[in-house]
């Protein structure tokens, strides 16, 4: 502080210089961040447009060598696997959140919170392995299916859903809970008629956030859902292609006509990013639109 107060007459050259260097460094960091980000976005859009045609959405890769073909099978796979993962995660996640907020015994809920916290950082490839191990323990080795992929993804999605739901349930105003309790509602009735409706927008936004997280996951699906060139709409049997794995395999198993494979990969990347952005946008809109009006009180 003495250095600051020491020269009331003006700022010394050295201090001014340091400030200039810092300014330049900040701008440089800003540029260093902006350049790769812009490059990534521009690349995906420009290269993705090459194959953004109807065939891409209507055709699979069955019997395709070289140019042509599409990602219809992978698109369907992504939709089915994501839906199945959501169907598994939402009841378990919301139920766990309700248990944590409303019923949790001190020791058990602290353990559960800890797990949820730590599992948010679970590497996705580990989730894939764990799902594989679980399925081997229950069904037997070698089984790859869309459902297995959905189980792996729900390991990643459950913590997200639990966290956001529990946070919203905790925000439900005490006076509303007391109003319902004072009217002679049992605990479950209070939760069902006051807690969950007030928390619903936040829970929905949290689920969308969770979908946004899993819809682009590659590694777990590569391990347990596998890859195929054909359309498979059956979640329980047979390998199922998904968009992220499709991108990976287009690069991994390139044929002679490399450009055709690259183009398909970029287009799939563009479509996938579109899907992810759609979900995060929807999550944000829902969070912003619904929360203020229904949580007021």
């Amino acid at each position, binding site marked *: 502080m003495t250095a600051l107060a020491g020269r009331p007459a003006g700022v010394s050259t050295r201090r001014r210089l340091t400030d200039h260097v810092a300014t330049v460094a900040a701008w440089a960091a800003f540029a260093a961040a902006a350049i790769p980000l812009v490059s990534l976005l521009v690349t995906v859009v420009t290269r993705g447009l090459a194959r953004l045609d109807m065939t891409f959405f209507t055709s699979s890769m069955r019997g395709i060598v070289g140019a042509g073909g599409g990602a219809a099978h992978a698109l369907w796979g992504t939709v089915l696997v994501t839906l199945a993962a959501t169907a598994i995660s939402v009841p378990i996640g919301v139920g766990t959140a309700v248990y944590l907020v409303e019923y949790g015994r001190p020791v058990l809920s602290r353990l559960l919170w800890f797990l949820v916290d730590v599992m948010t950082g679970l590497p996705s490839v580990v989730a894939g392995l764990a799902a594989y191990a679980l399925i081997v323990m229950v069904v037997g080795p070698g089984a790859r299916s869309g459902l297995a992929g959905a189980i792996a993804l729900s*390991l990643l999605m459950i913590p997200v859903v639990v966290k956001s739901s529990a946070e919203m349930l905790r925000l439900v105003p005490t006076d509303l809970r007391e109003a319902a309790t004072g009217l002679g509602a049992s605990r479950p009735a209070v939760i069902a008629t006051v807690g969950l409706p007030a928390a619903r927008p936040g829970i929905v936004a949290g689920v969308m956030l969770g979908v946004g997280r899993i819809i682009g996951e590659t590694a777990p699906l590569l391990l347990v859902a596998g890859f195929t060139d054909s359309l498979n709409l059956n979640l329980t049997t047979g390998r199922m292609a998904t968009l992220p794995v499709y991108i990976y395999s287009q690069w991994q198993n390139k044929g002679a006509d490399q450009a055709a494979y690259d183009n398909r990969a970029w287009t799939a990347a563009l479509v996938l990013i579109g899907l992810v952005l759609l979900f995060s946008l929807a999550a944000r809109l829902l969070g912003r639109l619904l929360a203020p009006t229904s949580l007021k009180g």
Partner: protein
Amino acid sequence: MKPADTLLTPRPARERVRDASARSAVTVAGLIGLVALAGVAVFLGVEGWPGLTARTGLPLQAANFWALAWPLAFGSFWAAVLGLGLAVPVAIGVALAQTWYVPRWAGRFLGATFDILAAIPSVVYGLWGLMIIAPRLAPVYAWLGAHLSWCPLFAGPPSASGRTILTAALVLAVMVLPVMAALCREVFAQTPRTTVEAALALGATRWEVIRLAVWPTGKAGVVSGAMLGFGRAVGETMVTAMVISPAPFLVGFGLINSTNPNTIAAFIAQTFPESHGVEVATLLALGLVLFVITFVVNVVARRIVRATGGRV
């Protein structure tokens, strides 16, 4: 019916059944959640045990599990350390720039770009690193190899394809940058307004305000944010699997070589689809190792967060 009776009369059976079933449904969901999350380690341990103890049949004809695991764990750490080493200074700089230096519109533009980038799947980052970044870096690596080969980091024949661990680290850095920058901005924003104003009133330059008021309050938050970013980078699969051109069992610090250490996550993703028997068990055990690493990193990061009273 006398009111005196009704106070002691139990509620109708239908009502009690309804409440009890709602309660048990929630409890069951909680237990499934608990089992699913706690089960990750258990499932991997049970199915991966044969891989931990096997002497034959391991992937790459490894002599034993640790001979395989150690170089991969090294690779995971090295890539993550490099990635974070690149990302942290930039993230701090960006956060400071956004709040102190660049005009508002530029800050907001970058914020919006970050939001989009945080949502981009890792496989797309992998594709970008592999097809766009690696070829552009190859000449840079050639130059570094020619002029700086006295430095062990740049020794050895430079990669012609550019698919080195440094390229992967660069892509990892870009990947974790949005989250880390947002985090830094948040902790810097917690600097008390009055402290900033007091420093400015004393005639401090912007840089001095940052050094004296902003940085001391935000330091711990940056450290824990970096830990969380590290946890993410160390388990990241697709970027390292697609970008790095690996050599088996390699442990080395070279940044630009054509041979690079592989990472646990990438090795699992590359090897698993064609594995059988003991190989699968070995990969499950490798997954357990990766799980333990990220678990420890996350727990420590959260401890720091809690110790400093922040929320991340």
